């Protein structure tokens, strides 16, 4: 992990717009910047464009207009072969988890390390440790199909954080877990944040946002960022 000095912008959007195919713009004139080491909640009603905004941030799509600068790289000018290096600095928790059903929980979490070419001995040391931390020590070899929604979510979170990313993006990461686990996961994100990871959590859970009200919020409505606190 190559943490930047706190305060420098890790991600910047300038007049960004996004449309799917020939449809209407789902994001319009998005302009904001997130300082390195910050912790933001991304809030807004359903359909406001939270997931689309995250998709642009984790380089799942390119904007149809405007400028996105990530880790000082203008995405429009970045070559395709440079993307993997940028993506390795980002951890993503997808709303639908996107676990690989044919792999065990351990192998799913190990994926980011294996694509980086980390030694298998290191993988076997760190992955069970992290899965233990999220309460899945007894499910290392379970396939996602045998896990509950909450367990899958924790596997997805473990996969997102195992590589100690510079930027962690989570789409409703506490949507399927009880309050106790939700708090535990939020504490995990806070620990990562203290170590320098910039965190953006998209959530509907207003109660959770209130409990961690010391973190600013990026509010989006009708495809436009309403406020950055």
């Amino acid at each position, binding site marked *: 992990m190559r943490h930047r000095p706190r305060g420098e912008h890790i991600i910047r959007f300038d007049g960004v717009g996004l449309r799917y195919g020939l449809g209407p713009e789902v994001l319009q004139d998005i302009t904001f910047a997130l300082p390195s080491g910050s912790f933001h909640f991304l809030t807004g009603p359903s359909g406001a464009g939270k997931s689309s905004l995250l998709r642009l941030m*984790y*380089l*799942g*799509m*390119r904007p149809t207009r405007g400028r996105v600068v990530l880790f000082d790289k203008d995405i429009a000018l970045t070559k*395709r*072969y440079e993307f*993997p*290096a940028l*993506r*390795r600095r980002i951890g*993503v928790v997808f709303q639908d988890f*996107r676990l*690989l059903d*044919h*792999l065990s929980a351990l*192998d799913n979490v190990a*994926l*980011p390390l*294996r*694509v*980086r070419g980390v030694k298998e001995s290191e993988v076997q040391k760190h992955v069970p440790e992290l899965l233990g931390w999220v309460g899945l020590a007894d499910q290392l070899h379970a396939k996602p199909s045998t896990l509950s929604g909450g367990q899958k979510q924790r596997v997805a979170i473990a*996969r997102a954080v195992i*590589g100690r990313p510079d930027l962690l993006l989570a789409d409703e990461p506490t949507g399927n877990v009880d309050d106790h686990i939700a708090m535990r996961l939020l504490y995990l994100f806070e620990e990562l944040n203290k170590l320098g990871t910039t965190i953006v959590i998209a959530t509907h859970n207003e109660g959770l946002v209130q409990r961690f009200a010391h973190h600013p919020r990026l509010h989006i409505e009708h495809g436009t960022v309403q406020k950055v606190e």
Partner: protein
Amino acid sequence: MMLGRRSDLPLKGDATSRFLPWLVALMVYLSAVAVAGTFVLAGLVSRWDHDVAGTLTVQVAPVPGEAGEMLTDERVRQAVDLLRRTTGVKTARALDKQQLVALLEPWLGSAEVVRDLPLPRLIDVAVDPDIRMDLGDLAERLAQTVPGASLDDHRVWLSRLINLSLTTQWVAIGIVLVIGGVTSATVVYATRTGMAVHKGVIEVLHLIGAHDDYIARQFADRAFSLGFSGGLLGLAMAVPTLGLIGWAARRVEGGFLPSLSLPIGGWVVIALLPLAAAGLAMYTARLTVHGTLARMP
């Protein structure tokens, strides 16, 4: 999985895993037969060329009538004398009637039938290949000195035979290339299908930072593994077939067909076909994945 490498993509259960080895098996089988044919023909051409180079045949027509036999013998002697005096001729040897009959027996039947036919007499001439002879001049002198004598330097029929063999060899090579092309096209189709089936997994791998080659390698490893197993199956089918053809050819040799044995080089090439097919499948799969991923964001 090649070399026991880990695969994150569930390629083992794909439908392509079931048909690709059989297809490659068939391709390797056909290639093996075509390669064997090429090598056998190349061997034949070289043997004919070697056997015939440095030899000439002089034919003396039989003289009819009661004293014909004696006259024919006299003409043969004259021709032999002329040939032996010619620069570049190493030996000139007239074949006697028994040798002629033995030569014709496989074609015309029993010696009794052949013996009564008015057969032309043949003179087998060995020439020094290092000395350039004027064969046109020799043919003219023979015709003038010995009535009914003609010179055959085998070149016309040999060159036609060699042309035929070379054409057949090129056709066989073309067949192997077409087979390679069909195999590649099938691997392209199978790989694209696999990529469409596993689009979600590929997307996840991309988003966690996998390089295109990380994904391409997994498809390539699988294609190699399927290609190699199919290739071995094709080889296992081809060897008995070639053995059977060889056995059948040996049964009809004895004058009609020259020896149709496959040289050791041919066996080596055939033995390498499974590896070549697997390599082709691997390379094609890798290129296909790179090409397809390059169009993704």
